[in-house]
């Protein structure tokens, strides 16, 4: 499958973009930059100021809540593989990273820069509608989980 179309499908499966129409994802896919990381490196650290979202094209990434831990002792709260997406909330807020991303295996990541996305949103307003829809859906899902938990506790 061609790189562009493959990227569109990867984006379509990412929570931040799953409500964006494929047609609008084309411009996002064209804006993704490929970056190679090697095992043992970190993509970013907790509390760092971030400005990008990452999608794993190849390899494995571990997410931890620890700062400056040694790789061997690191406990991962999640391990991400091909097609998984991380750091996406940073595209919209300016808060520091809430977790660290460690490269477990040599990886190729697709990177979307915050400033680039903002430029795309200004020029392709329909893109932001889809992203808002995705966010709203995630918020609803979170609300539903909270409501269910509350009902069960009652």
């Amino acid at each position, binding site marked *: 499958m061609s790189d562009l179309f493959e990227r569109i499908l990867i984006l379509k499966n990412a929570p931040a973009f799953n409500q964006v129409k494929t*047609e609008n994802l084309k411009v996002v896919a064209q804006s993704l930059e490929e970056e190679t990381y090697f095992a043992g490196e970190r993509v970013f650290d907790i509390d760092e100021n971030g400005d990008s979202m990452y999608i794993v094209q190849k390899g494995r990434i571990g997410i931890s809540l620890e700062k400056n831990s040694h790789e061997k002792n690191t406990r991962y709260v999640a391990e991400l593989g091909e097609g998984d997406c991380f750091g996406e909330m940073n595209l919209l807020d300016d808060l520091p990273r809430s977790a660290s991303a460690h490269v477990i295996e040599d990886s190729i990541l697709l990177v979307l820069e915050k400033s680039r996305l903002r430029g795309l949103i200004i020029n392709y307003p329909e893109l932001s509608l889809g992203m808002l829809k995705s966010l709203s859906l995630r918020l609803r899902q979170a609300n539903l989980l909270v409501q269910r938990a509350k009902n069960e506790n009652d």
Partner: protein
Amino acid sequence: MLQRISGLLLIKHGEQQQVFYFLILFFFVGTGMAVGRSASEALFFKRYGIEYLPLMFIINSVLLCAISILYAAFVDLLPSEKFYKILFIVLALSLLGNWYAATFSTTTLVYPAFFLLYEVASELLLIHCAVYINQNLLQTQSKRLTPVILAGHQTGVISGGILLASTSPILGVKNMMLLWISLLIISYLLIASWHSKIGVSPYFRSGRKGSSKLKQSIDQLAQGTKLMKTSRLLRMSSFGLFFKVISVYVLAYAVNNIYTEQFKTEESLGSFFGLLTAATGTIALLLQLFITNRLIRDQGIKRVNLIFPVASIFSYCLLLFSFALPSAIFGSFSKETLMPAFSNPVRNIFNASLPARLQGRAQAISVILVIPLGLTCAGVFLMLAQSIENIHNFLIIGLICSIAYLIFNNEMNQAYAQEILSNLKKRLFIPDNQLNDILHGSQHDAIKDIEQGLKSDEDEISLVYARVLSKSAPDRAAILIPQRMKNTGNAVKDQMIKILQSIQSADLRKCLVQVIGSGDTKLDATIFKALFHSRDIREKHRVKALLSHEHSRMKSAGIYGVLHYPVPELFDIAIDKWNSLLNSKQAENYMPAVELLVPEFKALYLQPPLRETVWQKLMQMLQQDDTQRIKLALEILSGWPPAHYDEIKDQILSLSNSSDWAIRNACLNTSHLLPETEVRKLLLASLEDQHPNVRGTAIRILASGQTDDIGYIQNMLVDKHAGSPRSIKTMLEYLMNAGADAGTMLAISLSLANDARKLRQASIYLKNSGLQDSPEVTLLSHALEERVIDTTDLSLFAIQTSNHDGDIAVIRAGLNSNDSRQFSNACELLTMLNNRELTDLILPLFEEVYTGKKNRHENMLFDNISTLITWIQNRSDPWLSECANHFSAILNNKTYV
């Protein structure tokens, strides 16, 4: 086999287990109720006396009211399954006490007590059934599955009737109480087991919690009463229910009088009641299984809502004609078959259209106020009728109440659509309404917000608000902007002066003169231009000096003054200076001169000696990297006389692909400088632009070249299925603004709905092609599904402004809300559209896409993948074609470029 049965009963994949649970549960509840009812009536009529029935109605009403207050207190606080469990335990214990008293004591009061216990319990069990179903199913599911679920109850009623008819002569009617207790225990265990598996009912929303339950009950009653005042649906439904209760209970009294007269012993009456229950129950079950849901779907809920009232009227007419067994049996048939088969399911659906949080309260109001009141009235009417000579007079009262019931149900039908619509409006964002609110209703608040924004410490934010305020409230802007200017930097001050200049404030001069001499030449030049703009005679003397100023911005202010006042004696000098500035190679020199190329001076700069200089300068600017200069050049060129200029063609076409939408948009405005063939190509391509403003400009220019613009666009939409949803939407917006008539818009709407159906077929064909795992299929499938949703939505959008007063906007918002409750409410509204053809096309599409349900079998348009691909490629939808080309290339094992 299971799938075939599911299909027949409209049960979708994944729902079977839940429906089976409901069926079994309500089967046992129904069996118990049938046993309890026939036994209690037979014992009461024979051992106590039917003449006391009206009195029982009155006592029953008081009991119902008291118990219902407790119901209202708990119904919204507890998940419905917990409530059911409590109800089963309390009822079983009461029955046990009753049976003990009937067996081991001689008092006859136990029979009216048993009768009343059944009446109260049956009301609570049935009313809570609706709440339980609504807390476990979505409205679309509820509408489809409630008749099936209630069929489980009906099967139980039949079994209960047969059980009673066969066992009561052997075991004795009174021992039937023990049988009912056993059935209640089974029901309890079923609920407990199911909810230990699935947890709390998924759509349960907890009500407020407080310290006093009694206070809460009273509050709920008050809230319910308030709700009655605000909701026409609830009001009409309550009046309808009131007359229904009187009609049903008077009918019950009439038919039971006939039966008690006809059957002499307790056993024979008990057996008859059992058989009657089984027979009427069987008919009701068949109706529920095979008729009710189809009738609701095909005839609409409103017509089905009228069946039982009409049948009640007919029953009374028969009884008035002949007060004998056949009439009584028809009366029982109407009450025991048509009421559960049509009236109850429809009532549940109506109730579900009320806001979810209030449904429990609405039910409580029915049980606390309306049913007891109806019962009391029925009892009083019957007692009065007993005291007069012709006891059959009460039938007249029943008939009148049946007619009133029919009238209020008809009113309820009218209120139903309005209720859903207003609920959706409250919950969804409807852009036009919001806009209207800002422009009309809450303008004062909006202006206050804007003024607050102008006071922001951030200069840039303040500037944005200044622009908005100058357009929405120029008088306020003229006062507030100068105040804010005192605390801004020179760049923002410069912009604010330009804003003030456009609103022609009387105090502008005073404010501007104070700022002159800040040391910033650009700012001073702007101030002079603003002063000259108002043609203030006191400032005219400055023009000559400025014309000779060494700074190009000041010089351009002088030129502006000469041309704008005008000052004829300085004209030649001004033109000369202007030309000289334009010829300069330095941007700081020529840009102030370019900024003077406004429409006001067009007649001057399109003449020699300026024309050629301007043209060359604009060509130069188009080749620069500065987007602001490109935009300015294009804006000036948009006012250039129409002609074909070869030297500009490539430049404009190249800029029309810019990533900046404003440049793409400006290119379209200069399209009159391109050859005819290029213009059409550019405009059609721009209809697909990602930015709505560019698409809007494209359609405006395209249509302006036509003698019949509406006909031209209609032709593009209907005959040529032009473009992607975004270009179709642009064309529809143009038609709406151009005032296309309702017939035209409806024709377009139908055409789009048909196109959406074809796209859906393509999507289904692709999914069933056996290529599911291929990424190319996934992408094309995604693209097709998106097109189905968009095109279906557009078919509704097309009739949005025609004749539906904004209802369509509400329906669209509901359908696209991603909220299953709003979605099902919107679907319900869609069924009530006047255009049946459109509804039949659109509704199944939305249901299929959002619920995954396959509505009907259709002949496929496509024989094979290749015809499908060709069909997509022949559509003028660039993205869909791109996906299809890619898919086709992969299929043919070619490398995609």
